[in-house]
């Protein structure tokens, strides 16, 4: 009988097994003595890295889940793009690397120092001398000067394709004082301007000749568009496969001599979560954001793996209430909603215990948020009090209404809304969950044609983005359409207080007051986890605002 084709299977099996055996990942894991997790807030910046022996060289490999829609550094805030721009570009200032997350300490980047006038309306930046653009056409390694800052910021203040016009509208004009000095005149005093100058999504400094030289082609390819003063130069890009960067030998060091320590990085495009897990377990990528469900698997599969727990967020997620719509114009109704929603139940039942409470300023902004204890007091679950407030408001039998959530945006908000709806129903507030497409839903929210909306309302690095934008009439994100003289006064007051401790007092007062007027009902934060191979050193992933330049400071101790 000649029908048994077992030979083929033997060959196939051999090829498969041999391929496993010969794969680089099959090599023994590097011996390290690193602890299971690097402590949060451990020293990482220049001075701090004097302790451990820094090892130079090697390629960092990690993954993102798609290609960016553009390579215009000012045209998108998607992480798909900012993962690239933080490698190739620099800002006037940046957030300190490795400090306790959420503290958002600003340190010099392209500017070596800055001054702010007493009225907080004039900011003067003094640039480092000798900073060079990448040594590629058309800039060919020329020196960065104040004109580049002016050009970049005028672009950020300008029209599309830049998307940041509104965010930078606080700047009145940018003046070049001399070759290395640039001055910003603001329209209004702003203690928070520094955070905008440090913003890791937008504040990238570009060269005029790159943008104008490419014209309509700017943003189409990374090799030609991502030309800046950053630590890495684009080496290659294979759409749908990978980005490859090589070390910029002329990098100015951003205050940390010798950086970057690695020879380059490769950002792989891996769409599937299981594939990212497999890539990490097989040591083909050096770090990744590990889903909660896979946490134990990762811990048990890689000896000495580093797990970094992110318990904070820089986003207010939750319900925003339109205070101009009946019955939500009645503060007692809103307070009833506040007492009728249990953050703890969402944490326990939806996040399986892995979550943190949120107040108005999100818990990740540790310098500005209220303490967890105080937040738990302000937003405590008290259904009896909710019912009492409803009775006082004239709704003893409760009422019916509508709660809108965006479809196709983020499933966790839909899930949390379902919890809120269930909680509120128990106190007599019967809200119908309405799913709106993101575009239509946002338009309705911006125009005030909604009652209650649950979403990631605001993401920011500093109080102004929450307070001024979200609580003051005319604010770009005053979705609750609040017009409360007390809030307006406090919000205007805090924005010009340069002393942080003093400012914090006012911000806290606002946070407490928002708890009283209950135009926002915050939702808790689900903890997230990053994991890193044992040999990846000095790794402090960013999870609060800003895309901190991790690649600049890590090294590989294989």
């Amino acid at each position, binding site marked *: 009988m000649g029908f048994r084709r077992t030979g083929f299977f033997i060959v*196939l099996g051999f090829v498969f097994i041999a391929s496993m055996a010969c794969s680089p990942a099959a090599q023994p894991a590097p011996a390290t003595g690193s602890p299971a997790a690097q402590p949060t807030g451990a020293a990482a910046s220049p001075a701090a890295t004097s302790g451990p022996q820094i090892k130079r060289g090697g390629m960092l490999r990690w993954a993102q889940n798609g290609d960016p*829609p553009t390579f215009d550094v000012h045209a998108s805030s*998607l992480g798909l793009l900012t993962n690239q721009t933080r490698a190739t570009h620099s800002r006037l200032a940046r957030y300190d690397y490795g400090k306790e997350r959420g503290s958002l300490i600003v340190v010099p980047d392209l500017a070596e120092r800055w001054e702010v006038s007493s009225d907080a309306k004039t900011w003067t930046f003094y640039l480092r001398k000798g900073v060079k653009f990448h040594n590629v056409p058309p800039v060919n390694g020329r020196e960065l000067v104040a004109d580049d800052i002016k050009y970049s910021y005028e672009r950020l203040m300008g029209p599309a394709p830049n998307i940041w016009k509104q965010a930078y509208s606080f700047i009145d004009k940018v003046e070049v004082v001399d070759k290395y000095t640039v001055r910003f005149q603001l329209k209004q005093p702003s203690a928070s301007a520094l955070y905008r100058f440090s913003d890791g999504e937008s504040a990238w400094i570009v060269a005029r000749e790159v943008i104008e030289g490419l014209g309509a082609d700017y943003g189409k390819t990374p090799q030609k568009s991502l030309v800046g003063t950053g630590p890495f130069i684009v080496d290659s890009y294979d759409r749908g496969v990978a980005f490859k960067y090589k070390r910029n030998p002329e990098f100015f060091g951003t205050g940390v001599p010798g950086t970057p320590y690695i020879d380059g990085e490769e950002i*792989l495009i891996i769409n599937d979560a*299981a*594939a990212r897990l497999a890539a990490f377990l097989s040591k083909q990528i050096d770090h990744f954001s590990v889903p909660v469900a896979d946490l134990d698997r990762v811990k048990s599969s890689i000896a000495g793996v580093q797990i970094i727990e992110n318990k904070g967020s820089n986003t207010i997620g939750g319900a925003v209430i339109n205070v101009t719509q009946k019955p939500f114009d009645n503060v007692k109704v809103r307070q009833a909603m506040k007492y009728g929603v249990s953050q703890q139940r969402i944490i326990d039942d939806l996040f399986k215990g892995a979550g943190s409470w949120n107040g108005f300023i999100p818990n990740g902004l540790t310098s500005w948020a209220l303490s967890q204890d105080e937040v738990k007091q302000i937003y405590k679950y008290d259904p009896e009090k909710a019912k009492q407030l409803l009775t006082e408001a004239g709704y003893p039998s409760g009422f019916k209404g509508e709660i809108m959530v965006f479809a196709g945006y983020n499933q966790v908000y839909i899930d949390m809304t379902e919890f809120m709806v269930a909680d509120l129903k128990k106190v007599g507030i019967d809200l119908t969950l309405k799913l709106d497409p993101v*575009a239509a839903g946002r338009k309705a929210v911006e125009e005030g044609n909604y009652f209650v909306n649950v979403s990631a309302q605001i993401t920011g690095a500093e109080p102004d983005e929450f307070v001024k934008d979200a609580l003051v009439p005319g604010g*770009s994100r005053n979705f609750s359409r609040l017009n409360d003289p007390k809030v307006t006064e406090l919000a205007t007051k805090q924005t010009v207080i340069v002393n942080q401790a003093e400012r914090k007092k006012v911000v806290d007062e606002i946070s407490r007051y928002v708890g009283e007027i209950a135009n926002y009902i915050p939702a808790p934060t689900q903890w997230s986890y990053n994991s890193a191979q044992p040999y990846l050193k000095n790794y402090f992933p960013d999870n609060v605002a800003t895309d901190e330049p991790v690649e600049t400071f890590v090294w590989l101790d294989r």
Partner: protein
Amino acid sequence: MRDYIIRRVLLMFPTLIGVTLAVFMLMHLAPGDVVMAKLVEDYVPQEYIDRMRAELGLDKPLHEQYLFWVSNVVRGELGTSLWSGTPVRDELAKRIPVSAELAALAMLVSVSIALPVGVLSAIRQDTGADYVGRFLSIGALSAPNFWLGTLILVLPAIWFGWAPPVRFVPLFQDPWTNLQQMLPAAVAMGAHSSAVVMRMSRSTLLEVLRQDYIRTAWAKGLSERVVIIRHALKNALIPVVTIWGTQLSHLLGGAVVMETIFSLPGVGLAVFQAIEHRDFVQLQGTVLFIAGVFVVMNLLVDLAYSWLDPRIRYS
């Protein structure tokens, strides 16, 4: 025969138009569009969103958008991706070889398993070998290929710290690495396909083996090999070829899940990304290609019948 082919080719056009129209309508029925996919994290003024939509032609009535796309296709242009700005034609040209290689390997896996097992099951009907073959085929049929693919990818990573290389390398650049990437996906895809083909091979062969002419062949004293291969198998293959054709079409164009799981930048992954980005131009161009593959494969299968069975004639 020529008239038949011409007629079939002409019939392709309404099919393709129907498919692209259905895709277009479905994409617009679902909430959101490519502009919101790009700006999902941003609050930008409405006029900015409107301007972006106008630049991409999304402000025009739906029928105009579709007709504009069709007019481009007629001129041989598949349009430009609304997400990346790259020509869809270039993107497809880059991705087709990846999907073709994967389909070929999956087909190889499928045929290599299905035919021997199917024939063995038929000629050893109701024996242990038959039961094992049928049990395995039902198992492979029942297991969703995304599940099988995920297991093939993740289990070796958990058990041995090994996974297929994640950075895709073209076949001619590094065949060894390429095969390490392709084979696991091909096995996951081929397993399901092999089960379908195996069951069909077995049942048709059983039917043919009961025909009078096979009894005559045995009576003539021909060897088992000659009876099975020369007389029975060729006739039994006609329905099997139909299944192969359909399976190959599926493998060529429908490897959406496998290519996504195994990070293979083929046509299937392009479909996934186009849907994710609400990029209907990219999606329609890709679907047009896939539909074209199906139509052409069906035609080729029909033509193959007359080769396998000279009694079949098209007129």
